[in-house]
């Protein structure tokens, strides 16, 4: 990232869709800020995952970007326009899904979407029926009678139906069944392909891993780390289960840097190792290895560890 998380200064960039500069939100009667000098940048066509525990500041960031709440200090721009001063202009290009989807209970899905389209005309009128079909949304039932998942579909459809350049989504897959989640991931890929930026908050790493190019982690209102998935993978520890024809060379393996061992019996050992793997293979080349199995890299574990460390440092 072309930014220093500690100084929090980000230079304005013509290619960035969302830029926040030391964005801070402090509520009256609370000692700690809900949002503390958050500086981040989302490039055009990038899918940015915003991860954090409940109450970490994800929704506050999103609500500030949408100008539902006003920043105490700092600033933010979406497509180069100030989120407070040019709020109406900003929203011409934004699609938003709130964390707790609120809809007009007595309206049918069709009436609701027609109302939303009155407030923000559609660029392509054929896109709405296509979305309805893809998500299998029932347009004739009152929204108040729909299940959480079906209401979420209408929340998603209203957010994307005008094909915005920037999508801001708060916990978008909440309540969706696996098939609809797949459809949603497809929708995100399509949005990315047409150049839209997506800012998506979640507390589910697996979901973020599926769709995001980059992940920011917020903790206690502070952006504690930003990583690309590739960065995470490269820093993740690799875990191997090794089978030796002779006894496990414990003495040599224990001397490997950043490695930890779990022996199962005389011939089997599980070894986790971070970073460069050459020293391991140097040791193995001196022994008769009959089997080597690599376990899948657990990015979530790695990310959580990184998050904890980054949080503690801060």
């Amino acid at each position: 990232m072309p930014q220093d998380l500690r100084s929090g200064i980000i230079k304005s960039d013509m290619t960035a869709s969302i830029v926040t500069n030391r964005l801070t939100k402090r509520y009256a009667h609370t000692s700690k800020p809900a949002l503390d000098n958050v500086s981040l940048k989302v490039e055009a066509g990038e899918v940015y995952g915003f991860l954090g525990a409940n109450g970490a500041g994800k929704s506050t960031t999103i609500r500030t970007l949408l100008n539902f709440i006003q920043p105490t200090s700092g600033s933010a721009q979406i497509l180069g326009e100030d989120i407070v001063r040019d709020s109406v202009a900003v929203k011409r290009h934004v699609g938003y899904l709130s964390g707790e989807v609120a809809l007009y209970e007595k309206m049918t899905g069709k009436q609701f979407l027609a109302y939303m389209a009155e407030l923000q005309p559609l660029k392509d009128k054929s896109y709405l029926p296509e979305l309805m079909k893809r998500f299998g949304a029932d347009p004739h039932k009152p929204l108040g009678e729909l299940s959480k998942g079906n209401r979420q579909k209408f929340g998603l459809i209203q957010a994307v139906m005008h094909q915005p350049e920037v999508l801001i989504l708060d916990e978008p897959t909440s309540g969706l069944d696996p098939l609809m989640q797949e459809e949603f991931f497809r929708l995100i890929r399509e949005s990315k392909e047409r150049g839209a930026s997506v800012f998506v908050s979640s507390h589910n790493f697996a979901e973020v891993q599926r769709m995001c190019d980059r992940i920011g982690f917020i903790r206690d209102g502070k952006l504690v780390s930003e990583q690309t998935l590739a960065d995470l993978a490269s820093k993740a520890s690799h875990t191997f289960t090794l089978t030796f024809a002779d006894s496990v060379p414990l003495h040599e393996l224990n001397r490997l840097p950043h490695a930890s061992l779990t022996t199962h019996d005389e011939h089997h050992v599980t070894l986790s190792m971070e970073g460069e793997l050459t020293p391991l293979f140097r040791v193995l080349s001196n022994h008769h290895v009959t089997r080597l199995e690599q376990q899948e890299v657990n990015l979530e574990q790695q990310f959580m560890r990184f998050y904890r460390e980054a949080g503690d440092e801060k």
Partner: protein
Amino acid sequence: MRNNAAVWAIVRNELRRRKLYLLWWSVGIIALVGLTVLAYGSVRDQAAELNKAFGSLSSSISSFVGTGDMFSPAGYLNSQLYFITLPILFILLSVTLSSSLLNKEESRHTLELLLARPVSRSGVLAAKAISGSIIVAILGAVTAITVALCALAVHIDIPIGYILLTSLAMLLFSGAFGALAFMLFAASQVTRRLAVVVAILVSFGGYILTSLAGMVHGLAWVAKLFPYHYYDPGAILTGKLSAGLVLYIAAIYIGAMVVATIGFRRRDIQ
């Protein structure tokens, strides 16, 4: 231009949602007003005697009903409808309605759906104010037409124009408290209940103060601060509209909208 289209879309939606509300209020008003005015037919012939009998009541009682003359055509409409009954009805209507216009959207989080679209906060506020005004105006028109038609039916000898003017003054006077509640909720983050309580206290507190002002000497100047002091429907029914009332009402509406707009544009949405 786009903002205007969005404002009218919000207005249309609000009116659609409140169709039944409007219907039931209309039915209630027609029943109440119709029965009250038609009942004049049964007292008209004894008006002189009744006025004589009630004329012996103390001035304090008269000040609470707005007139010492309760049975002349103008006195009857004033004491039975325009001085207390209709203002109470329309104050309650406008205060509860205006406080719910934004509150409902905000407490159910649908306000975020509106504000996530390219419509300004002042546009949303204007749409809600226009919706509330249209609803109150429709019910005011229902009231005025019912009074006028029933007055014709029982031969109340007051020009229709004066009845319409008094209904309009009553409507604007009562609606001013709705504007106050609207302003309180929009500009600050007070709860809907608090906005309603404050508006009701100002309205009925003002009524009691104005009524007592004739008896308690020191209250006269305090009463001048409240709108009820300027509200004299008995005079309007005879064609005399006080400039003080017009100014007071205009000041409240303009002030309320200015404060509501400034406050709503700056405050956090809950």
